[in-house]
């Protein structure tokens, strides 16, 4: 295991997978809209639960929002780095193309974990915003952090 070599390979993986994702531009645009809508949808669902109740299981609406946000961030991480590759393994096995991967002069496990796109996950960014919003209600200082973070990301 040569760390520098693998870092280099990972950089190449990132490059090619981003390039192949960006090949379908409308696809990315629609995915961004989907991410926004799904966030709107989950907040809508939460608001249905809370429309006649102040508390659910001892949680306030804002607290539930934080949970929702953290969940979606973790979900975004698995969707970005793990899920696409895992489904890919199945396909390789079924179609008999796994051999080509095993023959490559890199660690096969490394290949499987990192070869697929870290698809651009807007949900991650959107959620950071939401969580910070919820926190900043209690800790006003955080609002400054949030705005500066947002300036950074654009």
């Amino acid at each position, binding site marked *: 295991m040569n760390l520098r070599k693998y870092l280099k390979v990972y950089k190449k993986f990132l490059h090619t997978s981003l390039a192949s994702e960006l090949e379908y531009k409308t*696809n990315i645009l*629609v995915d961004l809209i*989907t991410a926004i*809508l799904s966030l709107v949808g989950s907040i*809508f669902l939460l608001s249905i639960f809370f*429309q006649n*109740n102040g508390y*659910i299981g001892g949680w306030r609406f804002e607290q539930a929002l934080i949970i929702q946000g953290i969940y979606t961030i973790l979900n975004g991480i698995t969707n970005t780095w793990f899920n696409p590759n895992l489904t890919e393994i199945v396909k390789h096995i079924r179609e008999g193309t796994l051999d080509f991967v095993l023959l490559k002069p890199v660690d096969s496990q490394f290949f499987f974990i990192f070869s697929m796109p870290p698809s651009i996950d807007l949900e991650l960014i959107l959620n950071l915003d939401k969580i910070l919003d919820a926190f900043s209600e209690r800790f006003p200082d955080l609002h400054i952090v949030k705005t500066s973070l947002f300036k950074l990301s654009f």
Partner: protein
Amino acid sequence: MLSNLIKRKMFTLLKVQYSNMLEYRVEIALWAISGIIPFFMLNIWTNNNLNESINISDVMLSRYFLCAFFVRQFSVVWVVFSFEEDSLLGKVSPYLIQPLIPFFRYLAQHLAEQITRFPFALIIAFFFFIFNPESIWIPNLGILFLSIVSTFLSFLIQFLIQSIVACLCFWTEKASSIERLLFIPTLFLSGLLAPVVSFPAYVKSWIYLTPFPYLIDFPANLLSGNETNIRGGLSMQNLWIFLLFPLFKKTWSEGTKKYTAMGS
């Protein structure tokens, strides 16, 4: 003659696809298990007494979510994902040469999957009743028949919408993102996670004009014996099919004209 031919072809396709699906039965069982979200939702509703505000008793609500589970099980559609893959890999071309619209193949695939899924769904329902024995009920035959019809209509609506989206592959090559976009309102507005009656008034005012509540909420209400407008629901389902079918035919014929064999 023609209808006979289609029937024979459909029968053969179904037989082939059914044996294909049986081969992957474990996967289908896992898919069936992955559809139990309504039960989690039921727990949220009843454990926090949220249903009191919408005037549905615990028992009726548990029946509703069980039926929502069933309706969802038999109206899952993935045609756009299959079609997109086939189109990107150039498999659509050989299908186009055959004297049969390829969508019959996908339709048979879906129906065969539903038949394979049926026993698994029954097992899950059995376990549901073990944990909620008070919610056991037997719908009368007429209602059962009508709800099977309306579940099938719901499946058809979703199949048509997805087929229209799938036809967009002829233009954009990757159309599944549009399907993922459409899935969001389907998930949140169809009644899978919360019955439509519980929605706030500003949503309820327009939601019945969209196809979404007829996908899960209407058939589930019908089957579970909750209050619903049977005639209105069925006619809205039919209306959407009548609107979507010509649109599908149009996009299909335009798309095949536009098609240049990808990958082959």
